[in-house]
């Protein structure tokens, strides 16, 4: 019995039979990933700038943003954004609003990861010596110029390894969007399983496929980070 099961799990031909369905599912993972990564980085930068601002209300707002989303489980955020946020917005605007599952997925993951990115950006910003800002001011640069010409280039360099790792985590997180019926790879697997009644090769195939993608991405990130570190520290 064990060997039958083993053969069946190693025999991924059923997964292969559905390769087109599965790959178009994986494409959805990439779409959700790309959109939510953009949102997370933009929102994260905003929140980080709030946290290092001079005015106290800004700092409080930034901290609230970070501590809420960084500590929230992805799944509850996904459910909350999909089922609660439209009702709240609808009540505020006096209309009936519904979110497309794809939109909910992007908003939820974007918010959660903006919390992580905000911390990464903040650590990067605060690691820059005051002297660099003062040097900029001494040359007569405006605060805006100092931010974009002096601060950000260094921040990006410092946070690159961690930021790339967070992208990998974000990609892994996209696998839960099937739970609000975004038709990603996991969604397709559960659908096909329902008709074929053979979870073993299907889930094993999905696990291996995700593993291959994530492992390749993580290895690239590791390689890039090492090279990067050598270049800026050398």
């Amino acid at each position, binding site marked *: 019995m*064990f060997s039958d*099961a*083993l053969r*069946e*799990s190693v025999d991924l031909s059923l997964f292969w039979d559905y390769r087109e369905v599965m790959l178009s599912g994986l494409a959805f993972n990439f779409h959700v990933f790309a959109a939510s990564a953009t949102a997370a980085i933009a929102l994260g930068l905003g929140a980080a700038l709030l946290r290092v601002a001079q005015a106290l209300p800004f700092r409080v707002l930034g901290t609230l943003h970070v*501590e*809420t989303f960084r*500590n*929230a*489980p*992805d*799944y*509850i*955020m996904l*459910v*909350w954004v999909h*089922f*609660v946020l439209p*009702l*709240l917005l609808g009540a505020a605007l006096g209309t009936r609003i519904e979110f497309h599952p794809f939109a909910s997925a992007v908003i939820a993951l974007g918010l959660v990861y903006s919390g992580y990115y905000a911390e990464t950006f903040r650590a990067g910003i605060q690691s820059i010596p005051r002297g660099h800002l003062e040097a900029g001011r001494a040359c007569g640069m405006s605060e805006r110029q100092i931010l974009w010409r002096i601060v950000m280039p260094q921040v990006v360099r410092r946070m690159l390894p961690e930021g790339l790792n967070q992208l990998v985590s974000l990609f*892994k*997180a996209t*696998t*839960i969007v099937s*739970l609000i019926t975004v038709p990603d790879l*996991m969604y397709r*697997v*559960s659908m096909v*399983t329902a008709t074929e009644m053979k*979870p*073993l090769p299907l*889930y*094993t195939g*999905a*696990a291996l496929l*995700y*593993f291959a993608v*994530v*492992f390749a991405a*993580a290895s690239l990130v590791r390689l890039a980070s090492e090279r990067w570190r050598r270049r800026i520290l050398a």
Partner: protein
Amino acid sequence: MGNWERLVWNQREVLLEGFLVTLHVCALAFAAAILGGLALCLLRMHVRPLRPLATLLIEFFRATPIFVQLMWVNYVWPELFGWPNSFFTAGWVALALQSSGYLAETFRAGIEAVPRGQREAGEAVGMGPALVMARIVLPQVALTTAPAIVNQFTVIVKSSTLVSVITVQDLMFQSQKLVNVWYEPIEILTATAAIYIAFVFAVSACGKRLSDALRRRFGIGSG
């Protein structure tokens, strides 16, 4: 406010019951992940014939998304190994697998960070390798990695919401059940999210205090 009382406060026992299941799953997963992570790390570093296997497992656990692992353990393992035989077990085992991969790497970094001179000081007073490991290296690893270990617990808590998908009756499960009874998600889901956020926040705050205390007392660990 009436809604909050009716949907959340009056349901507090159900929610608490769910929260206790969450704690139970997380505690089991956490304990198993620490033991598993330590075992994987020591196999990888010190048992040469098993190194490739340990490395493969660590990489697989780390690189496979938790939801995928959960489904895999839940649907595939029973057919493959005849175990786990309950959703509850499948839930904490999947959570433990993922975290054991991360903790194995944390422990490895911790062991490698113990300065060479620390071991030599042990050897110079006549300690053998086992004693050096047990009395000098591992206690320091425990201290330096404690904050990261606490952080891993918050990861487990966050991921544990997914065990509701395989019908483990944790907080997330109970909360969604209530939503399905009342069809009024706003208060229930918001309260559930708040509970999770507050709990994870509290655990991370403890972790931060711990790492500050360790640095003050022993001068070890980084910020």
